[in-house]
């Protein structure tokens, strides 16, 4: 990574510089507030409207046979957990290894053709970040129609659609982290005679671990709230389904959407279920993020 040369400022900052510093600090505090206010507002809305149905029934019942009040979202919670897990298993390694290829192989290749190819793959990854979630869903839907009976819906198809959205996010974020691993660490390993792959697995990856975990968290957060592709390919059901590979599988975002869009006469019951499901989804992601950070944190202490 290039080192910028510092333009050395005078030893005591002048009035202009101090004023600029104060303004900048105020602006940064303002940005923190601008970011925090909607966060707090959203969480407050979700919590206050979602607490009403945060009861045992919500976590122990599905919506099978329920009309009007009552029922729960166990089927949707389980569906989200399974589908997101499968999507992460599919997308995180692919995204990480693509980033590794870009940084460790393509960029360092002696052949300009390979380097150009690396540039193309980078562009491809960037373009992929712009795929509308519904287009990813439509693509998987068309793929399923080619290989299975039309209208086959399954949890794994939903995972595939989510993986298409997740891969570029993980790849791009990981790339930025890997590129910043100091070059001398790699050179040291190579100089000691280690193979290229050992340098990567023993030196680069552990150093970059917190950043890579953050990249995966970013990717999972990107897809966990997606509605449109799941509605299309994982379908909608109100019963439990334990099998990711066959049968419609409910998920929390689809559950929230359908409770909101297709209300019965007793609108209040549908509304409170929707908000509670939103709250459950946020809590679910919180658990996941905490777990991920715990996995990623231990190395950071040793980075110095």
């Amino acid at each position: 990574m290039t080192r910028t040369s510092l333009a050395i400022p005078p030893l005591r900052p002048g009035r202009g510089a101090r004023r600029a510093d104060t303004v900048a600090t105020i602006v940064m505090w303002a940005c923190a507030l601008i970011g925090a206010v909607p966060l707090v507002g959203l969480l407050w809305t979700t919590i206050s409207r979602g607490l009403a149905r945060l009861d045992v029934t919500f976590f122990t019942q599905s919506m099978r046979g329920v009309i009007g009040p009552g029922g729960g979202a166990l089927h949707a919670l389980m569906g989200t957990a399974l589908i997101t897990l499968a999507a992460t298993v599919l997308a995180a390694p692919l995204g990480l290894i693509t980033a590794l290829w870009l940084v460790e192989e393509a960029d360092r290749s002696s052949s300009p053709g390979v380097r150009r190819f690396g540039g193309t793959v980078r562009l491809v990854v960037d373009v992929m970040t712009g795929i509308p979630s519904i287009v990813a869903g439509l693509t998987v839907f068309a793929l399923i129609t080619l290989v299975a009976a039309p209208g086959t819906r399954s949890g794994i198809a939903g995972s595939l659609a989510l993986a298409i959205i997740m891969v570029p996010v993980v790849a791009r974020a990981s790339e930025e982290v890997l590129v910043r691993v100091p070059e001398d660490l790699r050179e040291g390993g190579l100089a000691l005679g280690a193979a290229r792959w050992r340098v990567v697995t023993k030196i680069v990856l552990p150093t970059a671990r917190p950043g890579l975990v953050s990249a995966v968290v970013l990717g999972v957060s990107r897809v966990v709230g997606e509605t449109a592709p799941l509605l299309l390919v994982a379908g909608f059901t109100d019963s439990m389904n334990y099998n990711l590979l066959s049968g419609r599988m409910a998920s929390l975002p689809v559950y929230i959407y359908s409770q909101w869009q297709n209300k019965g006469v007793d609108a209040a019951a549908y509304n409170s279920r929707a908000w509670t499901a939103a709250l459950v989804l946020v809590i679910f992601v919180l658990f996941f993020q905490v777990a991920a950070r715990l996995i990623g944190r231990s190395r950071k202490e040793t980075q110095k």
Partner: protein
Amino acid sequence: MKMRTSLSNAAKAAATIAALGLALTACASNEAPAATSTTDTTTASVTATVPALSGTLNAGGSTAQTAAQDAWRAGFQAANAGVTVNYDPVGSGAGRTGFASGSYVVIGTDDAFSATELSSTTFTLCATSDIVEVPAYISPVAVAFNLPGITSLILDANTAASLLSGKIKTWNDPAIAALNPGVTLPSTAVTPVFRSDKSGTTGNVTDYLSKAAPSVWTYGMVENWPTDLTGDAANGTQGVVAAITGAAGTVGYVDFSQTTGLGVASLINAGSPVAPNAAGATKTLSASTPQTGRSATDLAYDVNRTPSDPTAYPMIMVSYEVACAQYKDPANAALAKAYMSYVVSTEGQTAAAGNAGSAPLSSDATVASAVATAVAAIS
């Protein structure tokens, strides 16, 4: 030191994941274990002499029918514990495509299959090219508005068309005042609200406007609200309700069951104002006739938007349930016939009315028996 920190962190992470993992294996307390093979016909089946049904019935289509389908599926599954009925609210178009391709055994659709579609489509699951198409969901559509202090107004078709198309600019317009003597109308600007998504409700409303107010509404029957008209475009019924609730002076068309808290207009039909109500909606269907040129089991209606009955509510949405007249697979036939029979039965229609605010077919004996006959033909 390093090892201990990373081990305890890993342990914490594992505990967190395990807590999540418990959810993956839990059973839902409201789902009884699968029915055993003994046929306990006294408690399980709908009819005591038929052996218990089992299997999965995949249905899908119209989103407007979802609340009604919830009620039908719950009632049917309660009576037939071995059956799972799935309904995908993917939209009427996707439903019709799915029925043709065989992904759905039964569908709900706001638009009946057109003559062109019938002649050019092969229905994968059907043994013949005949379909059973019956109206199963009839719902009054209301003109809803938000004017503080006013809960109801009287409008005729021309005024309603002018309001919705943005021709009337303020609420104290003489056209509205003439129909509502004694009501103080504010000078608030009129903001029409309509659907941004393609929708069968829009189709039914524009069909009504084009037939009852042809001089004002010149766009014909369309399922996408004309884009050159002013106003707020909202997503789905709930979007329209939210838009109307959110600002004063708004007016739009909403399924009557979702108008709690909004002002609702009575429409003048055959000289007298009729408030939206289920019985009135059925009367409009009674005054309509099935389209000609279709098979005996295809009851696609030409809805009479100007019925002569002064108690009929004219702006209704009719949504259909479609099945094959003859299925290739007898298992599909048994499930489809049982489900459709439940849907059009008095019990089913009452359940739907309770959850979705629809008008039960059973209020009109002629229509109900015609529909029942068509459904009985499924084999």
